[in-house]
């Protein structure tokens, strides 16, 4: 998600200040997620019953609990740091699953055409025409909730975007000289698609992933907010908002801290994605 995804030609002019600010925020959030265990001052389940509902520093709180504490005296900052890690891991995992699944189906459709392509197109239509939240809720109702299932389910979000792009671009690539030349040399289809077509269309797919990443964060936090996503004692950003809602009148900081992180992160990734799209591929919408 850092500067490494930019190909050489994107370096012609410096990105706007807003995009740089977004990159700084994203880098910071990533570092927090990676070093969560070193950064958090307290354990997420460590209770301090003498310091319950303590406001943040500057609003009558102490330096020991910078962002205050919740009803059980748990440190909000520590919970926030761990929540960032869990929400990001889920969002990254889900985006990766969606990208791999969508690209594979798109390649299959482009390679076999005929009925395979029709089936893939029908699945794309189905996925695009149903609100994903409802489908996800239905699956959770039928199967119950567990973390692996939840991540897999999130991974079904947005695959149709990758499938559509991969299919279109692979069909176009098949008509070009380089794919035909490799095929004439006797390369297996898997080699053609993975070693030759994929690197040529990767930039577009990465942009698509950048666009669906914030949507996955919103979806995960929404489901966790409803109590149907990440389950306690684990915590995620949406989970914290859902919990903080109970103390809206007495301790709004429990809810405001994770809300701000969700909004800023989705905003920054969207800004970055929009900018990347304009640079790399203006045709993608």
């Amino acid at each position, binding site marked *: 998600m850092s500067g490494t995804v930019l190909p050489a030609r994107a370096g012609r002019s410096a990105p706007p200040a807003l995009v740089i600010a977004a990159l700084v925020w994203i880098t910071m959030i990533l570092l927090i997620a990676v070093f969560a265990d070193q950064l958090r001052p307290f354990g997420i389940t460590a209770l301090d019953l003498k310091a319950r509902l303590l406001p943040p520093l500057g609003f009558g709180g102490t330096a020991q609990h910078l962002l205050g504490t919740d009803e059980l005296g748990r440190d909000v900052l520590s919970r926030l740091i761990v929540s960032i890690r869990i929400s990001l891991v889920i969002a990254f995992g889900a985006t990766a699953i969606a990208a791999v699944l969508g690209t594979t189906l798109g390649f299959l459709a482009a390679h076999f055409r005929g009925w395979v392509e029709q089936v893939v197109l*029908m699945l794309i239509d189905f996925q695009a*025409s*149903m*609100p994903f939240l409802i489908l996800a809720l239905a699956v959770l*109702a039928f199967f119950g909730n567990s973390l692996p299932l939840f991540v897999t389910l999130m991974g079904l979000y947005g695959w149709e975007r990758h499938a559509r792009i991969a299919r279109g671009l692979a069909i176009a690539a098949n008509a070009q000289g380089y794919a035909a030349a490799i095929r004439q040399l006797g390369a297996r289809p898997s080699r053609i698609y993975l070693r030759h077509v994929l690197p040529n269309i990767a930039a577009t797919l990465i942009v698509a992933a950048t666009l669906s990443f914030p949507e996955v964060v919103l979806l995960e936090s*929404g489901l966790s*907010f409803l109590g149907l996503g990440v389950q306690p004692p684990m915590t995620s950003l949406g989970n914290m908002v859902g919990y903080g809602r109970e103390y*809206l009148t007495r301790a709004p900081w429990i809810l405001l801290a994770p809300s701000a992180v969700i909004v800023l992160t989705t905003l920054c990734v*969207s800004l970055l994605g929009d900018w990347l799209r304009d640079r790399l591929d203006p045709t993608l919408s």
Partner: protein
Amino acid sequence: MLRFLALRLVRAALTIALVVTFAFVVLRLSGDPAVIIMSPEAPAEAIAAFRKAWGLDQPIWIQYINYFGAILHGELGQSMRDGRPAIALVLERIPATLALTLPAFALKLCLGIPAGIQAALHRNSLTDRLVMAGAVAGFTVPSFVLGLLLVLLFAVTLGWLPSGGQDGWRSGILPVITLGLGGAGILARFTRSAMLEVLGQHYIRTASAKGVPWRAVVRNHALPNAAIPTVTVIGFMVGSLIAGAVVVESVFSWPGVGRLLIVAVANRDLAVVQCILLMVAGTMVTANFAVDLLYGLLDPRLRGAR
């Protein structure tokens, strides 16, 4: 035109069939319905009798056909919580949901479309920047955060409006604003980019060059052409009238379909979930079908294509 209609109808029917298949597959994958409904401790004979009574002893494809037939007859099962037909439970919640989603839909249209058009007509102006900033906020601020912030401001701090529940029109204001603002942002963004695309076309320049007043160019040439992509988004919004308020209803404890769905999911009340799933699929497909028809009216070129 008839061929166009027929193709669209087939596609709509296929989507519904896919949703029913999805429900059937997920339902069967989640475990043996006999064991789930009778409880695992039930005697073996009772389970066998239950299987026979409900046709669960037959091959899976016959079960599938029977399932399809039952749904076509409107038999959607009973709620496991209070034994009433699932469809009745869902239907009695629909008015409450529509009481939120219809005004919110109007708010989206009245706010989003004019804002998008103004932003496109005055590209890079202050208006444009404000509209775009609002639009980005519209889809990066999740509805539960926006809703809770509104509650914090207008209910807790100022005390002007109730924070939740459903008594009187005043309790509907905050949920409608929460729903409407997010959608208006998305709509404004779409309208703006559709307008910008159209305004760059040759026929707009031709119309201006031959002396047509700018207002007339916008009204007669730009707006109708920009309507096509915008109608798609509006169609999606119509389709989500029934289930588009799941999160917002939860935030404001509003007794609508979304609330029912969340409770049903938490309790694994499968019949109710399935009923809502099919109803949402029905509205989405109908809305998409209507959008396709509108396309045909708006753009004669699309009638033959695709």
